[in-house]
C-alpha cells in the first residue's frame, strides 16, 4: 500500500484516495516541435526499476496535483512536492542520494 503526503493539505493520503497521473516533469511538445521530439513526448517513458518521479492527484481530498518521488520496487517514498515545480527539488534529490547512492533518472542524479 502506498501512502503519500499531499503537499497542499498535509494529509497522509492512501493510494486509493489518489489518482495516478503518470510520469513527472514531461516537456509537452506542441505544434512546431519536430516529429522526433513529439514522438518521444508521446511514447517514451522511463519505466525504471527503482527511483521514479510521478504525478498524482489528491482526487478524494483537496483535488490538487502534486509530484512524488518513490522507488518502484520497494514503494519507499522519498518525498512529495508541489506541482508548480519543473524539476525534482534539491532536498528530495539529496534524500534519494542518501537512500540510493548512485541513482539516476533521466538526466538527474
Amino acid at each position: 500500500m502506498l501512502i503519500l503526503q499531499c503537499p497542499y493539505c498535509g494529509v497522509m493520503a492512501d493510494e486509493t484516495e489518489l489518482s495516478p497521473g503518470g510520469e513527472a516533469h514531461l516537456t509537452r511538445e506542441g505544434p512546431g516541435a519536430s516529429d522526433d521530439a513529439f514522438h518521444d513526448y508521446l511514447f517514451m517513458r522511463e519505466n525504471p526499476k527503482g527511483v521514479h518521479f510521478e504525478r498524482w492527484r489528491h482526487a478524494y481530498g483537496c483535488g490538487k496535483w502534486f509530484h512524488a518521488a518513490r522507488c518502484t520496487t520497494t514503494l519507499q517514498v522519498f518525498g512529495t512536492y508541489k506541482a508548480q515545480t519543473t524539476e525534482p527539488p534539491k532536498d528530495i534529490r539529496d534524500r534519494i542520494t542518501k537512500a540510493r547512492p548512485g541513482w539516476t533518472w533521466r538526466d538527474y542524479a
Partner: protein
Amino acid sequence: MSDVKSVTALGGKSFGGLVRVAEAPLQGMITVRGDLGLASVKEAATGLTKAEMPATGRIETGAEGAIAWMSPDELLVLCAYADAAPSVPKMEDTMAKDFASAADVSDARAMFRLEGALSREVLAKLSPADLSVEGCAVGQMRRTRLAQVPAAIWFTDDETASVICFRSVADYVFALLKTAAQPGSAVGLAPAG
C-alpha cells in the same frame, strides 16, 4: 417553484447500532473559492459565520456557523439553511473585485451525524484515512472517501462525527454507515479517549 418545501435527501432517517447514525436536518452550505489569503475572501466567510479563518485542514466554529478548509483555494461555509441562499449575493459583492466566487451548495450535499464512543471505529471501517484521535483530532477536516464515494469527515468532540457527502449518494452513504454500525460488528479498536 418558490413554495416548494426544502427537504433533506433521506427525510432525516436514523439508525441505532454501535453508534447512532442520523441524517442531519437541512444545513446551509456555501462553497467559497478563491485565494484564501485575500482579505475579501476572509471577510466573506468570517462575516457570515463569526468564525475564525481555519488553518490548513481545519474547521473553525463560530456563533453563526462554521468554516471548513477544503483545499488551498476552497472553503466550505456552514450556516443556517435559510441564510445560505440570501448570503451568496452578499458574499459575491464582498469579493466582487477579486477572482473569487461563492455558491450555495446546501441542496447538493447531504450530511450525517454519528454519535457514540465507536464513531471513529465505524467510520474507519469505511475509509482509508487515519481516523484515530491522533490522526483526525477534533477540529480537523478530513476529506477522504467512504467506500466508493468522496466524503468530508470531522469530529466535533471525541464521540461525535459529522459527515458530508454528495446528495446523490446520500442513500448509499447511509447504507454504508448502517452496515458499519451493525450491532455486534465492533472490531475492537480502542474507542476514543
